């Protein structure tokens, strides 16, 4: 056991899966010699060489497109898109192909591949470096969409994603990369994809969050306990799609109230599906409408104003109080 930050934890998963299975290859911009702009692939190029850790030309569609070809051949490519804001360049390869090859070939082929991308705010960089685009992937049939909330879940879920026979979009919160260290076991650890985790039990209100927003939800839960004496149940989604409706519904059947927190913008965003599925799964228990605490529906705000844009604990607390007072 060692205490690792999320970058190191992800790196460990990559290393161990590459040692386990020589079909696992890494491809992306600057993932090789440079070790990735966030250093998630650090040292792997040295250990496994440039044919397994491939420094690609600057072209996202070809990164995903060639990885699809590799997967069809039986390799298990892990693609890094440098920032999630640049993944629209390869969106057609994802939607037209990675997500469909199993259906198109009626099972003769499939795309066992992982698409890793840093997402969300927190690096003081320009446009396209703070967005949170999980919604786009969650809506595509044939894809799985995973967002870990810390070093340990990141490591275990990445290992599972690599072994998953279906294409997995794997979002890594930039804000979490170095935010905290956690104990991460030396031996390989996996975690089921498609399953949410109760992060904190409570009976008064359910807070649903994922990625960097888990911290925000936890903080809000603490404030609500201390200041309002309210026991909040916090769900760490971990997999956005397929959504673990069961865990969410069971919680809201108990609490009767729910608030969803995400960094994506609100309109037609992931919170809508979560809210709709709560309505479907816990209608008779609902004491108040499900509230959504999200980024605003504006294209971008500049990093100097991220702090008003991205949800913080105060906003969550206020939404929770409204929900409790409903």
């Amino acid at each position, binding site marked *: 056991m060692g205490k690792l930050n999320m970058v190191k934890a992800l790196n460990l998963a990559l290393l161990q899966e590459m040692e386990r299975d020589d079909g696992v290859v890494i491809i992306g911009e600057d993932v090789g010699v440079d070790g990735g702009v966030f250093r998630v692939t650090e040292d792997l190029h040295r250990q496994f060489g440039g044919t*397994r850790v491939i420094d690609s030309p600057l072209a996202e*569609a070809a990164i995903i497109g060639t990885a699809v070809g590799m997967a069809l051949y039986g390799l298990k490519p892990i693609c890094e898109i440098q920032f999630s804001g640049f993944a629209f360049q390869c969106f*057609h390869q994802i939607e037209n192909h990675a997500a469909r090859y199993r259906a198109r070939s*009626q099972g003769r082929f499939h795309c066992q591949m992982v698409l890793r991308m840093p997402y969300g705010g927190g690096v003081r960089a320009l446009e396209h470096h703070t967005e949170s685009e999980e919604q786009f992937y969650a809506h595509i049939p044939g894809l799985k969409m995973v967002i870990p909330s810390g070093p340990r879940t990141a490591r275990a879920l990445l290992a599972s994603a690599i072994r998953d026979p279906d294409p997995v979009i794997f979002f890594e919160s930039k804000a979490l990369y170095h935010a905290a260290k956690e104990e991460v076991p030396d031996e390989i650890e996996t975690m089921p994809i498609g399953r949410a985790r109760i992060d904190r039990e409570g009976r008064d209100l359910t807070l649903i969050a994922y990625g960097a927003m888990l911290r925000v939800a936890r903080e809000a839960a603490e404030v609500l306990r201390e200041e309002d004496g309210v026991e909040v149940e916090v769900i760490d989604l971990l997999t956005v799609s397929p959504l673990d409706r069961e865990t969410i519904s069971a919680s809201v059947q108990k609490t009767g109230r729910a608030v969803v927190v995400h960094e994506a913008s609100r309109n037609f965003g992931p919170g809508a599906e979560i809210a709709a599925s709560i309505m479907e799964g816990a209608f008779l228990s609902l004491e108040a409408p499900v509230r959504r605490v999200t980024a605003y529906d504006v294209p971008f705000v500049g990093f100097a104003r991220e702090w008003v844009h991205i949800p913080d604990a105060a906003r969550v607390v206020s939404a929770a109080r409204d929900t409790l007072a409903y």
Partner: protein
Amino acid sequence: MPRTPIEPRFKIEYLSILDSEGSLDTALEPDIPPGDLKRLYRAMVLGRRLDERMVRLQRQGRIGTFAPIKGQEAAQIGSVFALRRTDWMVPSFRETAAMLWRGWPIEKLLCLFAGRLEGGQPAPDQHDLPITIPVATQLPHAVGLAYAAQYRGDDVVVMAYCGDGATSEGDFHEALNFAGVWHVPVVFVVQNNQWAISIPLKKQTHSATLAQKALGYGFPGIQVDGNDLLAVYAASREAVARARHGEGPTLIECVTYRLGVHTTADDPTRYRSDEEVKAWERKDPLPRARAYLEKKNLLDDGLEEQVDAEIARAVERFETMADADPLTIFDHVFAERPAHLEAQRAELRERLGADPPRRVDEERPLPTPMRGQRKTSRWAN
């Protein structure tokens, strides 16, 4: 203003062996065994006859929109012949003849064009991708396959097809650039049939040839007479050999012509002249190959009838094929069905129970065709 030319300078070459007048450059003539020549010609005839049959099936509403290959038989058969069965073939959507050569059963293709998922499934031992509709997006897959083969040390060449229009897409560029950098065993066959639906080549690119696009990726490009079976094969054989021997990718531009409609939903009389089509009909690859075989005394009597009978049998098999259970739409989304699909499947099962599945073609009104679908003149004659 004087400047220093960068050496070496670039050139692009054109290859023609058997021209439309029937003159043969015997120095360049590839040595194809008689049996193979017969198979090749038969495959071209099969491509042509099936094409015609499929257009009729479409007109009768028995299959959906379909892209005929008429005029491109030499480009397809001449190139795909250079592959081994263990090599990979990556089609676009207009390679029926090449796909048949690779072993796709006719009825499976019919099934695909009839809008049934089963038609997209290659056999377990077939190294072929299913057809790709989004133009040029299959090219990076070909490069990835070639990379993977090279990674695994397998003796494999990948041949990927696309059209002239496809060369404008970003994916074409990115795929060729990756292929150049990675130096992988891939051959890009561009069937330059002069048109991308209604867009003629000169509106597609200001480049004098498509072959010269390879210059930007640092590997060879060659232009061949795409209606000349021998030239296409000679260039393909060389490119495949180069690829197999670790000498990297090649771009082959086959100069050919789409003699028919773009798809059964298209009306080419709107955008091109009869004279143009007639001029290209004189370069039709089929009579040219036929004359070549005739000279060699390799023409079998009754070939057309044989081929037609083969097609008829396949159509029969297609028509009597049981419709797959509609519930199979949930079978190949993921390796394992997640809860929400299980629920949707249950819902559909219940619906179907209440109101059991029917053949859609029989009982549902035909949906609106794309306009032009029925008023095409070219295929009427």
